[in-house]
């Protein structure tokens, strides 16, 4: 299966380990993975700040890098959602449609396309599950506490295949962490308060790690945890699924 690996800009720059884990995991599962070398950013930071008129350059570059792939996979629900909902510029409109239909968040790709039922992974730790909003409410990667509907979670389905892992959920199972893109600096006080409150619920569960499908949430929570001097670490879902003893 030919996969174009889409690595969000801030993961490329600050969290290469998340990208490496995603790459290795996909290879391990038999995918033929290409990494388009001139990719940058999906354009979400501008668009969510009200500047979608400035994303043309990112759109064009994204299409140039990712046209022609059977599947495009990224370890980020948020960036995938942006591509699906807001990618609008490209040389050929049929490329846009094809890209929107073939772009997948990692857990979605593993569960729905690769139909993974077992993993050679081991992570004997207590892990708190943070549900990233855009993947959940935008891409429907898991059920949502607001709706009257059957429960499911693609991330949990995968984490349950990891040997030794004990998954723990906070009381408010899917409340936002407060990152919110530019919100994290322009509404700094609310953003941090939301993050602190999420962390508080995980600490009650005595977790060693907090995991999520989006590194942006984790970067925000990690910043707060480190300031608090906490020993709790953040780890992306891909890193856990790629861990072998």
């Amino acid at each position, binding site marked *: 299966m030919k996969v174009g690996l889409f*690595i969000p800009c801030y993961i490329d720059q600050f969290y290469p380990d998340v990208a*490496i884990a995603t790459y290795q995991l996909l290879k391990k599962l038999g995918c033929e993975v290409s990494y388009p070398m001139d990719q940058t950013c999906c354009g979400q930071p501008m668009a969510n700040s009200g*500047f979608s008129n400035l994303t043309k350059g990112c759109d064009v570059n994204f299409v140039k890098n990712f046209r022609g792939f059977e599947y495009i996979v990224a370890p980020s629900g948020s960036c995938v959602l942006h591509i699906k909902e807001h990618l609008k510029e490209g040389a050929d409109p049929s490329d846009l449609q094809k890209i929107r239909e073939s772009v997948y968040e990692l857990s979605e790709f593993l569960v729905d396309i690769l139909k993974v039922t077992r993993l050679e992974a081991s992570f004997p730790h207590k892990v708190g599950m943070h549900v990233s909003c855009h993947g959940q409410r935008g891409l429907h990667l898991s059920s949502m506490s*607001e709706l009257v509907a059957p429960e499911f979670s693609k991330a949990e389905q995968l984490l349950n295949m990891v040997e030794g892992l004990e998954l723990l959920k906070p009381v408010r199972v899917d409340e936002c962490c407060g990152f*919110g893109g530019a919100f994290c600096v322009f*509404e*700094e006080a*609310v953003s941090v308060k939301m993050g602190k*409150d999420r962390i508080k619920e995980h600490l009650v569960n005595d977790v060693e790690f907090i995991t999520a499908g989006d590194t942006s949430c984790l970067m925000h929570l990690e*910043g707060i945890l480190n300031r608090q001097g906490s020993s709790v670490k953040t780890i992306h879902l891909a890193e856990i699924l790629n861990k072998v003893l």
Partner: protein
Amino acid sequence: MNVKQHAEAAEEFIRDEARTDWHDETLWFVRDKRDIAVNKLPEWEILRDWASRIKDHTLSNLDHYLKSFEEKAVSNGIIVHWATDAEDHNRIIHKIIADNKIDKIVKSKSMLTEECHLNEYLQSKGIKILDSDLGEYIVQLREETPSHIVLPAIHLKRQDVSETFHEHLNTEKGNYDPQYLAGAARHHLRERFIEADLAITGVNFAIAESGSFVVCTNEGNADMGVHAANIHIACMGIEKLIPKTDHLGVFLRLLARSATGQPITTYSSHFNKPRPGQQMHMVIVDNGRSRQLGRPDFRNSLKCIRCAACFNTCPVYRKSGGHSYHSAVAGPIGSILNPNLDMKANSDLPFASTLCGSCSNVCPVKIDIHQQLWKWRQIIVANGNVEKGKKVGMQGMAWVLSNPQVYRISGKIGRWVMRTFPFMLSNRLNAWYKQREMPRAPEKSFRDWFIENK
């Protein structure tokens, strides 16, 4: 008056962290009650879908239903007035009061009259209205505005209420017993109900086929006012219509469950016609609603039935308080309604959200609130209601991210600076760093690793 922007007002609110936690937990409790109530109805999502579609249909045929309502209401004996805007609404009400030489007025909760600033208008004419909803009564005594459309005094603790009542109603100092305090308010309000000559109410639903309308309260205060007074004025936005009485079954089931987790509001009072000797007026108000109806991206915000479920679920609202939205209607729904009323004054509100989407999920009429927040951001920026520094920053970022080579070099330099001179970013000028550590800047990007290891 210099109104504080949401971020600044929220920062002040959060400074009292214990109180913020209390506010957050109190409202989460309401969200929780809502979850329990809606999960008892297997048909919940179907009801939401019906409500959404009934409102879609009504909004698409609003002219027809408004005319039908007016015709039926008039034939029932209701005097119908049309108000283009807030001032018109206030003037009409003032005229009714003046023509009948009234000075004892009670008003049950109506967010429309808050939106139109009716109290202030009448006060400027020397007329004082008594707000009879307990929460509104409390905030009125304190000369504040409601911080929540269903729970107007939710920002206050019982200790605050006790102090306010001690000052205004001469209750015992330090008696925080809710029952005692509610009893004191009831006693005081009862007298006002009896002596009132005119009662103002809002409207939850108006039925086009019958010309009747429904007012929902939990305290019965609308009924107390209306039954004792000789004149009833009901104030309604044009979007409150539903075509048929049958449709009430959908909306009444959704409203109270969404608002407070109750199966139904304690009082759902149906008004059809004035009783003998009574005057019944209905003021139907546009105040920007037809403008919103004309915006394809935002028209369905007019489906709102003012349940406030989006307030209770919104972590930003819970942690920043209703007053930080500086508007009659706060919370996520307020953030998509208020820019229509005054885009410049409310340009901060669509940004007071992480776009988490929880609001859209709890909305009983399925308004795509978070999508509309995103769309308002685009319009606000396109209209120039944005700080220059932010605009320049975004332009710079867009340029860097549009050019792969520039992106890679900037990344490399940026990471090197962070490692070599951490204080360049780890300082007070950086809002991220105020309460969070910076991420570790690795020597190599993923791309660098990939070139070496693929």
